[in-house]
């Protein structure tokens, strides 16, 4: 399938593509927040006020694409937690009012499928609609779902994407679980930090995918996901995945790897990097932070590279001086869930 349009809201200025003009934002500390566009023309003011961040950035990234295309046949979203902040707001009401009379808005928005539901509602799209929330491979599952739909031959154009919010409450919970760095560092130093933990990012990345090559930005060739591998078979998995898709080791010129500065898990990426020594390696979490569906941003970034956008020097981790034709994205979340996404120049 082909990516024919895309939109990103992230901690970088991606919604207007000015990231590619060399304007890379640098963050201090362990919370990276999205730079959001003006939603005035997109979302009615009353609706916007009641929207939690996950729903807002999901709609903010998805609706411009739907409005432009007008013939989207289905919507598939991947999100680990959806509107967790709405969820906790509702929870706080439960406790503060001792289960009294509560307003349901936060409850309804807290379900992860409310992003896909709102997109369908706002665009009157009655087609296929699904929400994957398998944490670290939820975005990979949206791609798989789209591939299966296209193989059935009933539809030819879909909106797929990932959404994750960095809210105070999910930060608190994940901080207890030891996900974040104790020290405060600059995002430009994240990848070499070599301490435990990463930083909390967020974003919504949306894609129009089509079976039709016309106006294609790049080809989204295939996806693969797996859980709890042993470190010795990661290289084998990658090689098999490439072979299945008829990409020889020589053909593969670029890797995009999810280095997040956490010494407990970055070795996975180093292993893959050494397995393909002739490749250029790009990073992305030094731009947007770590979050379960960050491979959605990697897909947005890699698509733009294949489309010929000027590559920010901040993401070149190893330069093999090869013109990008095929990019293998490898992302894992907490070393537990792993995904490959293969993109190809058209």
């Amino acid at each position: 399938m082909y990516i024919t349009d895309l939109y990103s809201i992230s901690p970088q200025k991606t919604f207007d593509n000015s990231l590619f003009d060399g304007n890379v934002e640098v963050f201090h500390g362990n919370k990276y927040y999205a730079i959001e566009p003006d939603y005035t023309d997109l979302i009615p003011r009353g609706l916007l006020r009641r929207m939690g961040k996950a729903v807002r950035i999901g709609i903010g990234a998805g609706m411009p694409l739907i409005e432009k295309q007008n013939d989207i046949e289905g919507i598939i979203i991947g999100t680990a937690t959806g509107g967790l902040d709405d969820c906790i707001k509702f929870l706080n009401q439960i406790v503060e009012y001792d289960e009294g009379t509560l307003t349901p808005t936060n409850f309804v928005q807290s379900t992860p499928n409310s992003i896909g539901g709102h997109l369908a509602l706002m665009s009157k799209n009655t087609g296929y609609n699904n929400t994957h929330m398998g944490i670290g491979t939820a975005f990979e599952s949206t791609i798989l779902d789209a591939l299966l739909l296209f193989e059935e031959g009933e539809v030819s154009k879909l909106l797929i994407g990932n959404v994750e919010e960095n809210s105070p409450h999910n930060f608190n919970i994940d901080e207890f679980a030891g996900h974040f760095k104790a020290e405060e560092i600059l995002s430009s130093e994240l990848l070499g930090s070599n301490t435990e933990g990463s930083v909390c990012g967020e974003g919504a990345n949306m894609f129009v995918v089509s079976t039709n090559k016309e106006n294609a930005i790049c080809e989204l060739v295939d996806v693969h996901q797996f859980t709890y591998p042993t470190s010795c078979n990661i290289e084998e998995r990658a090689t098999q995945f490439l072979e299945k898709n008829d990409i020889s080791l020589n053909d593969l010129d670029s890797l995009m790897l999810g280095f997040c500065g956490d010494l407990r898990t970055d070795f996975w990426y180093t292993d893959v990097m050494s397995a393909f020594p002739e490749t250029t390696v790009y990073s992305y979490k030094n731009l947007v932070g770590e979050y379960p569906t960050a491979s959605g941003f990697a897909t947005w970034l890699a698509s733009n590279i294949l489309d010929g956008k000027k590559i920010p020097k901040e993401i070149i981790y190893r330069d093999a001086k090869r013109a990008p034709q095929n990019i293998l994205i490898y992302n894992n979340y907490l070393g537990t869930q792993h995904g490959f996404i293969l993109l190809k120049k058209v």
Partner: protein
Amino acid sequence: MKKVFVTGMGVISAIGNNTAENLTHLRNGKTGIAKAKYVRSNYAQTHPFAEVKSSTEDLKSRLNLKTTKGLTRTDYIAFTALKEAVENSQLTLKEISSENTAFISASTIGGMCMTDQLYEDANLISSGSEFVESYPGSTHALKIAKEYHLSGVVNTINTACSSSANAIMLGAKLIKSGRATRAIVGGTDSLGKFSINGFNALQILSNDHCAPFDENRKGLNLGEGAAYLILESEEIVGTKKTYAEILGYGNSNDAFHPSSLSEDAVGIVECISKALKSASINPDEVDYINAHGTATGNNDITELTGINKVFSGFPPFNSTKSYTGHTLGAAGAIEAVYSILSINNNELFSSLNCNTPIDKFNQLPIKEHINANVKTVLSNSFGFGGNCTSLIIRES
């Protein structure tokens, strides 16, 4: 496209801790909705619930898991149904952990059944409970993946109340496409203050036993449970016992309102029609409909509107939520198991508490347990966010 067969099932709900116990209750018309014993909520005093009739400790002690740190009631319920399903299908550990075995689960509440702990952890009142990594709805799937050494696709769907119907659909599609030869599919949810207060805030939580398809229905009862089905490709099924075939599925969005269905049942008509088309059957081949039938004012009349638009005359239908309550993310899978029980035993279970048919259609659901020829079943699941899914299950 390869055929997809069900070779194993496991279920736990308010009417039993395994498939046999569930079947006995369905045959005897005996509901599991009652005064709650385990869930901690003020509403436990005023509203009935469909609780699994075991304490979390009892569920845990029956499982013998390698690790139990951070496991919640949602997880134990899931493990219980999953264990029955894999034993029923006589899967070896090697088959379960094969790269060709996918695991597609579903949940809406997940670890948020630990409502008080989540409140304390999220608001920094605690110093971090053992459940800090247990709240996301897909945590149960990762725990299961670890326990059983799953190495294929592991995924969790959350489309609210249609979640596990979509899990069954996706598993079947992976097999049909050849991307997996086996899929373990289903869903799990347990009761908690979060969902109870959510549905109460929406004013659709009944303080009486739910009465699906009754003109005077007052809303739903929340329940808990889990069900898993083992799906296998015709390529590998061999001489193994099969319970049914997953023949078709349809998924749509009603695109009308965040928490209610459109009067003209747009999404329902679309998902049922797509399911029939994907199964390549005519509406008159459907012998029975396991309805979504939540007993809310909005759902039941809209569901009948949709059925009426697709079918000429109403096939026999019931809502087994009158036994299990609404088990949210587990509902589609539990109801798929019940549909298969109807097919395997050629019997239809009575729908409880419906005395006065909805005025507009004058259609009563199945009122008593009957023997009937059941070859093909339509099972409906509709959720918040407009998510609608229908499955077609056929005798094998």
